[in-house]
């Protein structure tokens, strides 16, 4: 991109080309139409400011989605405002899983299902969906950014203002709760 005027023209054309994709991406994560629209707008504005950094070798959509992920993470930070820190009184789902000598109370089952099957088979996907819906709000949001969107844990800690240990514990809880729920619903 040569001048700022060129960049601005190009980005305006991208609003039509990628705007809806980015909007659905944001809406699925933040579940709030007004917020999703705002995040898409902020993404385009940020993209214009760093248009020089855009290398043609990555696709425009991937580049914009990369910016949007961080806008979403900022959105979650203000939404949770410190509620992402572990409170001493928090119940830990891992306490349920182990006995006093730190062995499994209920041995993990030997899963035969493949990830493809779990995500594509209509019946299994429904279970995955229901179990995911049962994660508490903050676990859901953090888990999504990390596990699905692949944000780096260092960046997430910075975005959320929490310690790495704090983040690792939240992620372990989310994974453990999901796995336990899937097993309870017959996933093997």
């Amino acid at each position, binding site marked *: 991109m040569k001048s700022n005027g060129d960049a601005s023209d190009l980005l305006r054309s991208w609003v039509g080309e990628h705007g809806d994709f980015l*909007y659905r991406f944001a809406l699925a994560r933040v579940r709030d139409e007004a917020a999703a629209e705002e995040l898409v707008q902020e993404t385009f504005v940020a993209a214009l400011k760093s248009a020089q950094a855009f290398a043609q070798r990555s696709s425009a959509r991937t580049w914009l989605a990369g910016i949007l992920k961080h806008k979403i993470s900022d959105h979650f930070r203000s939404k949770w405002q410190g509620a992402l820190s572990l409170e001493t009184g928090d119940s830990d789902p891992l306490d349920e899983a182990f006995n006093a000598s730190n062995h499994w109370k209920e041995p993990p089952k030997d899963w035969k299902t493949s990830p493809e099957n*779990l995500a594509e088979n209509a019946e299994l996907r429904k279970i995955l969906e229901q179990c995911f819906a049962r994660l508490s709000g903050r676990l859901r949001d953090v888990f999504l950014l990390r596990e699905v969107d692949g944000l780096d844990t260092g960046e997430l800690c910075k975005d959320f203002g929490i310690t790495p240990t704090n983040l690792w514990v939240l992620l*372990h809880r989310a994974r453990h709760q999901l796995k336990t729920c899937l097993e309870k619903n017959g996933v093997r």
Partner: protein
Amino acid sequence: MMIHCRRASRLISESMDRRLSPFERAALGVHLCICDMCARYRKQLSCLRDAMARWWNRPETGLDDKNASLTDAAKERIRRRLNSD
């Protein structure tokens, strides 16, 4: 070098988020050789990660309306912001 299952489960999850120290890697490796249950747990968490990514790559995941889109007015607002900035 011996760690119990609770510690192992934590290291299994954390290995998905950070690089374990050489000591942690060795301790977890030894534990997984002798503990089928934790080996299964590791397999489960890794299956879960892949399944989640696949599921969320489906265009309708997380949306009530898979065709949800920006209104024309919203697109126009964004284009105007790009002009004025």
